[in-house]
């Protein structure tokens, strides 16, 4: 398996990982269908959650993709990004409190909720080292590209990474929501709900360490 394949695999895997986390919204898809008493409410809710998640991902990745124009600072940017992700992980590890802002969102505004949930949990940051790995990889395979062209490519890459990640996240959430809604019933809602807070924070730290290691030792 090449590094590029592994990195794209990580984009998909992190999508599944975000998708199964109830904190990213699949219980909302179940409740939307039940509250509105129609099946069609579920795909609509899932789409809204996906939209919010995509916006949160691209909101984080886009600034980093623009920074890749500073090609001579590549290592520093990747180190900084890695440290930022580690810092977010440590913050979530220490501050185990709940993001209160989510409680203020109107229940019908699912895309906004999903955006804020992803932001509050640092979901976008988790993708940054992976994205920079992919962007850096392109860089080496296409070293003769002008910086402007590189940045343009990386902006496209950021959208593709955010899109594929969101697709994987949406698929994972949709599968769980569908199984609970159609077959298992609400009883399993609380049964499938695991506390991922600790694992999540550690994931951020590990991804950050990966980003730093990759920056220092090539990929």
């Amino acid at each position: 398996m090449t590094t590029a394949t592994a990195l794209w695999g990580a984009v998909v895997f992190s999508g599944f990982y975000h998708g199964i986390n109830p904190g990213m919204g699949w219980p909302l898809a179940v409740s939307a269908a039940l509250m509105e008493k129609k099946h069609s409410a579920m795909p609509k809710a899932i789409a809204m959650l996906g939209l919010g998640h995509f916006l949160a991902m691209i909101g984080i990745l886009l600034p980093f993709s623009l920074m890749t124009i500073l090609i001579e600072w590549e290592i520093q940017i990747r180190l900084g990004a890695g440290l930022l992700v580690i810092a977010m992980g440590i913050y979530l590890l220490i501050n185990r409190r709940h993001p209160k802002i989510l409680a203020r969102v109107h229940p019908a505004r699912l895309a906004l909720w999903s955006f804020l949930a992803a932001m509050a949990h640092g979901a976008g940051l988790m993708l940054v080292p992976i994205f920079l790995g992919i962007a850096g990889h392109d860089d080496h395979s296409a070293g003769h590209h002008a910086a402007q062209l590189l940045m343009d490519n990386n902006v496209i890459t950021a959208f593709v990474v955010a899109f594929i990640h969101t697709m994987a996240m949406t698929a994972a959430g949709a599968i769980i929501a569908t199984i609970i809604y159609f077959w298992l019933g609400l009883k399993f809602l609380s049964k499938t709900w695991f506390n991922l807070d600790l694992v999540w924070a550690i994931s951020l730290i590990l991804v950050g360490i990966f980003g730093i290691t990759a920056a220092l030792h090539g990929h």
Partner: protein
Amino acid sequence: MNIRPDPTFHASAKLAMQAPSENYAFTVMLSPDGEMSDGIAVVDLNPDSKTYGEIVHQVIVPNKGDEFHHFGWNACSSSLSPLSGHAFLERRYLIVPGIRSSRIYIIDVKDPLKAKIHKTIEPEELFEKTGYSRPHTIHCGPEGIYVSTLGGAGSDGTDGPPGIFIMDCETFEIIGRYEMDRGKQDKHYDFWWNLPQDYMVSSEWGLPPQFENGIVPEDLLANKYGHSIHFWDLRARKNIQTMDFGENYQMALEVRPAHDPTKSYGFCGVVVDTTNLQGAIFTWWRDDDGKWQSKKTITIDPVPASADELPELLKGFEAVPPLVTDIDLSLDDKYLYVACWGLGEMHQYDVSDPLNPKLAGKVELGGIIAHHKHPNGKGFAFGPQMVEISRDGERVYWTNSLYSTWDDQFYPNDEGGQMVMAHVGKNGGLELDKDFYIDFPQGLRAHQIRLEGGDCSTDSFCYPSV
């Protein structure tokens, strides 16, 4: 924090009904004259236990004069909310406010037999952080624990309106006031909500000078107690509609929304209609245009009596008012229990059709002139008051004291605290359990009951009963 959601959190009211039965009750013990300290009695409710139906532990607080009234949990099924899900909290602490002292105790009941005080919030902290006093109803909801208060600032609680404040559900720090726009709301009592539909309903008793030293007959006859309920945009913290039942509907107290969050209706009990002394229940609902409506759907008539049988307060009326002082709705939204504290009756209404309630069962116990005895032959002080229903809807528990100074006015010759239980028939009907009768320790009266693992006036459900 748990790894899995607390097993007492249920996604829907239906799932809560299927959960294991309650093993313990927690009941308020209050000293009417402040001679003793108030406390929480832990009652054994496991029929297989040797100490079934007995007080097996007491948490007695160090202060006197708190006057416990209502209380609630730090966390309930609302923790499974898909929006503000906080599923890994423990249902472990009871938040017990003193409505006379404004002191709040946090009691750890993880092991009910070793329940103990976890934290005390002194009145000064509440005054300083909220400008409110006399904390009352507790509900766990978005952003933390919501607490309603009966008084504003100042020594008599009339400096500014009372309202709701929010507490952190883990540290129990007081965060601050809830309201951003209270509209016409200037009195407070109970509140509850529908979390997915994002509305809250609050009610009105009266301001502290109207209740602390007893009911003020002149204020009642001048219709100066609360007679409105308020509908709020819950998350925007804004009063969106004030509904006045009419000024003769004095004291709109308990608010009971349907437990199934797809339903947009509920009930409110009114203590007394000053035009005819009836007790009343209003059904409120949201119409197709989003406006809130209400209709009086239950009336309970007063019973004529001769002046010499009546306490001073009622002599002039020559009748016993029903005094509807508490209501409670079963988790399947089928039966509404109505405490008629003056008559000495507990009514059970079938509210399957919320606009056409039908009397389905009735128990007579105590009462101002009736003095109905318990089937075990013993008397019952005062009348049926705070009522709580088991999650499965099969058992109904209640106690007898309303509020210290009011007990003394309506029942000047009674004293004592009792807790009883009635069984609900398969098709309705209500029958007292002859063997379940708890006499509270000498000098203490009994008020609100909370059941281990949640009950019918605690948990807010975020998913429909399907």
